[in-house]
C-alpha cells in the first residue's frame, strides 16, 4: 500500500531571466494505491501528473505532505534508508529508445540488476541466467532470440517489453508507467497495455498509469481508480468506468469531449463541453483553478473547491456545481 497526503511541490526557476518565478506543480494532492491495486493519473501536459509519478517512484522530492510506503513514512528517513522502499516501485518511461543503453545487449542490461540482487540474497550465478529468461518470458519475449541482441535490433514494442522486464528483475510491488505506450506503433500499443494488465493479475503488481489518453486508462482494470489532475490539483477521482461514463467536473467533461469521434462507428456525445479559453490564458491562482475556462462558472467559484463527495454522485469531485453530462462518443451499434 502506498499513500500520499497533502503533497505540495513548487518548482523555482533559477539562473535565467525567469529567475524567481514559481511553478506550482502540485497543490496538496492525496492518493492511495492499495497493494495489487491500480490507479491512473490523467490530465494535460504541465498538470503535475508526471511530477506526482516521480515523487511516488522516489525520483523527486516534495515540499509538504507525506508519502507512506507499506506503513513507513518517507520524509523522516535518510536517503539510504529510503532506498529499499522505493526499490519496490519501478518506473517505465515513455521512450523505450532512450531508456536502454544502446551499447549493451539485452543480456547485459538484465544482468546488472540481477547480479546485485543475487549478491544481496546469496544466490548463485545460474539463478541470474534463469531469472533473466524468466522475466523475458513474463513479458512475452523469447529469451533465446532476444538475450544476445542490442536495443537497435528490436522494434519499439519489443524494447518497451525489455524495459518492463528490467523493472521486474527487482521484484517490484508497483510499476509506474508514464505515457508508456505513446511512442509505440498503434497496432502494438494494445499488446503493451494488455501485458501490464496481465502482470497485475498474475503477479499482483500494482500499476500506476500516467497518461493523457483517457481510453488507455481503462486498461488498468475496472477496479482501478482514475485521478483527473488540473494545474496541480486532483479535481475528480473515482472508479475508472464511472468517471469516464459519468463525469461531473466540467474539466473532466471537456477532456473527454476533446477525444476524436470515430465517425462511421460512433456518434458524438450530446452535451460536449468546450473550454472557453486555452490553457495558456489560465493563470489565475485564486478561487477555482478552472473557473476562467469554465462555461458553467457560478457565484461560488471565487473560492477554491475541495475534493469531496456530495450527494448523488459516487465519485469525489472539486466543483461547486457538479452535474452529469453526456459527453463521450457512443458506438453507433448502441441505441
Amino acid at each position, binding site marked *: 500500500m502506498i499513500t500520499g497526503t497533502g503533497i505540495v511541490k513548487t518548482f523555482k526557476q533559477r539562473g535565467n531571466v525567469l529567475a524567481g518565478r514559481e511553478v506550482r506543480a502540485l497543490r496538496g494532492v492525496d492518493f492511495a494505491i492499495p497493494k495489487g491495486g491500480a490507479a491512473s493519473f490523467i490530465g*494535460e*501536459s504541465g498538470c503535475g501528473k508526471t511530477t506526482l509519478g516521480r515523487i511516488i517512484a522516489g525520483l523527486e522530492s516534495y515540499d509538504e505532505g507525506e508519502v507512506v510506503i507499506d506503513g513507513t513514512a518517507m520524509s523522516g528517513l535518510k536517503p539510504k534508508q529510503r532506498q529499499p522502499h522505493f526499490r519496490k516501485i519501478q518506473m517505465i518511461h515513455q521512450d523505450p529508445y532512450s531508456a536502454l543503453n544502446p551499447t549493451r545487449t539485452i543480456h547485459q542490461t538484465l544482468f546488472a540488476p540481477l547480479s546485485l540482487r543475487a549478491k544481496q540474497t546469496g544466490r548463485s550465478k545460474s539463478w541470474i541466467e534463469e531469472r533473466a529468461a524468466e522475466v523475458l518470458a513474463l513479458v512475452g519475449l523469447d529469451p533465446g532470440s532476444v538475450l544476445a541482441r542490442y536495443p537497435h535490433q528490436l*522494434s*519499439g*514494442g*519489443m524494447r518497451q517489453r525489455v524495459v518492463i522486464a528490467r523493472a521486474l528483475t527487482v521484484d517490484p510491488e508497483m510499476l509506474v508507467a508514464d505515457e508508456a505506450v505513446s511512442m509505440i*506503433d*498503434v*497496432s*502494438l*500499443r*494494445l*499488446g503493451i*497495455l*494488455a501485458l501490464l494488465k496481465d502482470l497485475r493479475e498474475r503477479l499482483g503488481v500494482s500499476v500506476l498509469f500516467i497518461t*493523457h*489518453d*483517457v*481510453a*488507455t486508462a*481503462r*486498461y488498468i482494470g475496472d477496479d482501478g481508480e482514475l485521478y483527473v489532475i488540473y494545474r496541480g490539483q486532483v479535481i475528480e477521482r473515482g472508479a475508472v468506468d464511472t468517471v*469516464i*461514463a459519468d463525469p461531473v467536473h466540467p474539466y473532466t467533461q*471537456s*477532456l*473527454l*469531449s*476533446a*477525444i*476524436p*469521434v*470515430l*465517425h*462511421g*462507428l460512433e456518434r458524438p456525445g450530446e452535451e460536449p463541453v468546450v*473550454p472557453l479559453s*486555452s*490553457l*495558456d490564458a489560465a493563470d489565475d491562482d485564486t478561487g477555482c483553478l478552472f473557473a476562467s475556462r469554465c462555461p458553467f462558472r457560478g457565484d461560488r467559484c471565487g473560492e477554491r473547491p475541495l475534493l469531496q463527495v456530495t450527494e448523488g454522485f459516487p465519485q469525489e469531485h472539486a466543483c461547486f456545481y457538479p452535474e452529469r453530462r453526456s459527453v*463521450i*462518443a*457512443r*458506438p*453507433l451499434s*448502441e441505441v
Partner: protein
Amino acid sequence: MAEQAPGVRIGGLTVVYKTPAGELPAVRDVSLTLEPGSITGIVGESGSGKSTLALSLLNAVQPPGRIAAGTVEIDGLGDVATFTGEELRKARGKHIGYVFQAAQNSLNPLKTVGKQLLDLGRSHGVEDLHGLVREAKELLGRMGLDGARVLDSHQHELSGGMRQRVGIMLALVLNAHLVVLDEPTTALDMITQANILKIVREVHAERGLTTLVITHDIGVVAEVADRLAVMYGGRLVEQGPTREVLGRPRHPYTKGLISAIPRLVGDIDEARALPGRPPTLATVPKEGCVFRERCALRMDVCDTVDPEAVAHGPRIVACHAVTVKEHA
C-alpha cells in the same frame, strides 16, 4: 496559378532509399487523387512511407532517397516530380504549404516569429511586406492568437499548441491553396488537439484549400478528413470515404488497426492488438503482399503476387482475399 483549390493526381509513385543492401522502396507504386477542395487523411504506422509520400508532393525527398518512378500532377503547376532548382523553390511555400512534423521544433530559436515571416516573404520576392505582416496577423487572430504578440515572440515563449498554429500560419500566409500537414497534433494534449483540428477544418473551408493530413492516429483523420487512405509497408492498401472505411473496413490491415483502438465504452477486451509487427525498410517483402505476415486471410497467392489496387465503387482496396470475395 488559379486562386482556388487545386486537384492533385499522384500516379504510380515509387520512392527509393539507397542503403548498403541496394535501393529499397519506401513508397511503392502508389496512386492517389486529391480532389480539389477535399481533406484527405493518410494513416500509417512508423515506416509505412506516409511522410515520404507527403514530401514527394514538394519533390523534397532528401538523398539518399529519390523519386524513382511516377508522377505528381498538381493543377496549375504541372508534374512536380520533374521540377528542379528555382522552379521547385518557387512552388514550395507559394503554391504548396507544408506544416512539418513537430512544428514545435521547426522554428528558428534565435529569431522572432516575425523575422522568420519576413525571411519567408523576401525569399519569395514579396514586395508588400507590410501586407504580408497584416495577413499573418489576421491568420493568427483567426486561430485565436494575439498576432502582434506572437510575431514579437521567440519560439520558447510559445506553447506547443501556439507553435503549431504558427506553423499553419507560415504555410498559408503566401496564399498557398494546397496544404500538407504532417502529424499536426502529435505531442499535443487532447484539448489542444481538438482546437487545432477545428482550426484546420475551418481554415480549409474559409480559404478554399486542398488539404492532406498525414497521421498515425485514426482519430485525427476521423475528425477532419473526407477521404481516408491507409498505408502499410510503402503501399496504399485501402482508400475511400472516411465514414465508410471506418464503418466497414475491407482490408484486413485496416480492420486490425481499427479494432486495436482502445475505446471509451464497451468491453475493453474487444480491442485487440495486431499480431506481429510492422515491417521496416529492410524487412518489407520484395514480392507478394506486404501485410501477409500478419494477415489472417493469407492465401498462397499472397506470397508471390503483389495485390493490385482494385476499385469497388468509391473504395479502392489492394487485397487478394477481398478481390476474390468480390468476384465470387
